[in-house]
């Protein structure tokens, strides 16, 4: 048999191949949708046609075994049609309403929960962490697992004032919308890179390494007669950008790496403008496997938000209304000098008014 031909630049398969016939017929003609119960949606078209969606959780890291199981469930209940969401949920696309409960039952028998709709905590967007990343300051999958275990009731119910989107990124590269989530867990380094002077010249280009530093903390130098670089440690903000361009500057440090917690960001334009998350807790040491201090802090934010926020207020809108001083009062999180920005546009975050609550 001849070896198969190698084709390039063909792009992905056309999406129409994968659309349910009812979706094809009603493409662009949807009129409204309803959430029938947690994790179950119905979309109704102008023609009156209906399509049902069952949204199920996933750890994002999936074995082929589980994918094949999902395929079998799709064949059994949704004619083989399914999709994934931007938050890594699995969505079965059903035309037969009677299949909804049997599908949910079989998902639950396989430890796959259903939920994540409307005013819930949906799946956590996250990065690779220790599973696959060289620059991670923490693990992402582990944090997601323990946070979702702890907040599980909020995935299966829709009782929060509004949706709460949580994200985990294992370093400042933030391969995920951590900087615009309701609650963000961000891994960070706290010490400058350790320079491998013996190998730096062979492994890295010195000018581009020097240029990579956003605070100009890196300078060329000679160490033991070999060209290398030095770091002005006072100027280092532990971003790891130099490590990205120069492998001889590893920044991971198990003693000092850890996570920070940020709150109040969003990407939606609903009501208020999209906004960045702001610092709540500057540092929590890595405490695997269950990062108890992190899950307790997240649970505390969610619980207080659930009690104190008005309906249809996202976390950031709630904090904006009550004021940041009260947020720190309510949560008991310590406000430190690290909460005050000192990078480029720092001044924009200073309070320039006497309007304050006492």
């Amino acid at each position, binding site marked *: 048999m001849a070896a198969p031909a190698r084709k390039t630049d063909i792009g992905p398969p056309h999406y129409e191949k994968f659309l349910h016939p009812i979706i094809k017929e009603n493409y662009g003609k949807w009129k409204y949708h309803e959430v029938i119960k947690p994790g179950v949606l119905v979309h109704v078209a102008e023609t009156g046609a209906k399509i049902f969606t069952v949204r199920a959780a996933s750890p994002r890291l999936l074995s082929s075994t589980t994918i094949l199981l999902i395929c079998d469930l799709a064949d059994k209940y949704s004619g083989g049609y399914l999709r994934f969401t931007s938050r890594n949920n699995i969505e079965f696309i059903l035309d037969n309403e009677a299949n909804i409960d049997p599908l949910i039952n079989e998902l639950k028998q396989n430890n796959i929960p259903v939920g994540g709709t409307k005013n819930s905590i949906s799946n956590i967007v996250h990065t690779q962490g220790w599973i696959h990343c060289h620059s991670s300051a923490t693990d992402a999958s582990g944090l997601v697992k323990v946070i979702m275990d702890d907040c599980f009731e909020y995935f299966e119910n829709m009782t929060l004032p509004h949706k709460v989107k949580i994200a985990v990124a294992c370093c400042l590269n933030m391969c995920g919308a951590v900087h615009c989530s309701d609650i963000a867990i961000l891994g960070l380094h706290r010490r400058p890179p350790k320079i491998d002077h013996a190998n730096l010249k062979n492994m890295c280009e010195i000018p581009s390494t020097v240029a990579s530093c956003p605070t100009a903390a890196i300078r060329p130098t000679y160490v033991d007669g070999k060209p290398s670089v030095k770091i002005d440690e006072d100027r280092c903000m532990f971003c790891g950008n130099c490590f990205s361009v120069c492998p001889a500057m590893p920044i991971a440090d198990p003693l000092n790496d850890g996570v920070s917690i940020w709150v109040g960001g969003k990407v939606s334009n609903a009501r208020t403008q999209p906004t960045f998350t702001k610092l709540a807790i500057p540092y929590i040491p890595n405490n*695997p496997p269950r990062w108890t201090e992190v899950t307790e802090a997240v649970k505390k934010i969610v619980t207080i938000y659930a009690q104190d926020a008005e309906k249809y207020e996202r976390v950031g809108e709630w904090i904006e209304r009550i004021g940041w001083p009260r947020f720190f009062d309510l949560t008991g999180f310590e406000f430190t000098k690290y909460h005050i920005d000192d990078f480029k546009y720092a001044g924009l975050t200073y309070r320039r008014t006497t309007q304050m609550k006492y």
Partner: protein
Amino acid sequence: MSDSKSPILDELEKGPWPSFVTEIKKAAEKSPMAQGLLEQLELSYKEKKTHWKHGGIVGVKGYGGGIIGRYSDASDKFPDVAHFHTVRVNQPSGWFYTADALRELMGIWEKHGSCLTNFHGSTGDTVFLGTKTSELEAIFTELSEKGWDLGGSGSDVRTPSCCVGPARCEFACYDTLALTYDLTMSYQDELHRPFFPYKWKFKMAGCPNDCVASIARSDFSIIGTWKDDIRMDSEAVKEYAADADFNIQKFVVNKCPSKCMSWDGEKLEIDNRNCVKCMHCINVMPKALRVGKEKGAAILIGAKAPIVEGAQLASVIVPFIDMTPPYQELKDLIAAIWEFWDEHGVARERIGECIQRVGLGSFIEQIGLKPLPQMVLQPRDNPYIFYEEYLEEE
């Protein structure tokens, strides 16, 4: 279990949320690479540090994107993950699949890799997680034979991605799936053969709810919106009014950011001229309110995460653009921006940082756009103006 090779990770099989550790173990039943990953990850959990080495130089022939090289720094202990490269497979628009399509992908992956996947990666690709250099060409050939291609990585067009759009959402103001497919196919060369100073992400969001976070995560963000009046079904408004758990004044009118709605207990009125198309009222009363009919999109540019010069949200460069194929105006604009970036960009500088450096005013002038008040929240309040015109004595 005393004989477990992963006593720390086993703790993460407890609790109600689906466990990634269980997934790794399931994959390990089929692939020694997954077992290697489990054991290396156990060491990471013990030592609180990653055991993956920096970067990589692997790929498939001719492509600069699609494969992320990854090597273990403890390959003496875990030889099965000495190589553990990622294959990014370009996902179908909207992440729609059939069971048969997924089985086809898994068939290739079980033969050549760790049996571990991500559905999906942060940019949107279907991710095959962990294989050896020697398997890459075979994976690529088999994928291409079945009609699949690799996604982007490095300084190229990253795999474009979009929300569910008109396939299953009444809010969609343009066809996000069609545009995603069109741009992906139009820019195959730019996607596979990195030519830019740094990465370039396209994200297509059908409405201002922005379910793909395009405003936070894409260099070129296309967000659906509309120009005319919100469509209202007065009968359905009455149904919401009759619902004891729903309070139109409190949940809808009071939350309107432009205060353009009023409710007298019988009639809901919208001053559409002052509506900013935020989506809140439509989101909470989807049966009664709908986006308008004169639909299109706003184009925003320059979003990115912190590295290098700080995080940015995207900002408006085109307040409204028609979104009917073949999208020529859009593609002309993209070409002009890439030309500008090629000329002015430096290594590892995203377009948003490049614009910060040269100034938005100068950027739009060079790509041929007119300055518009919609591009800013307010005119400048700083009087240091770089005037370019002046008079000279005759």
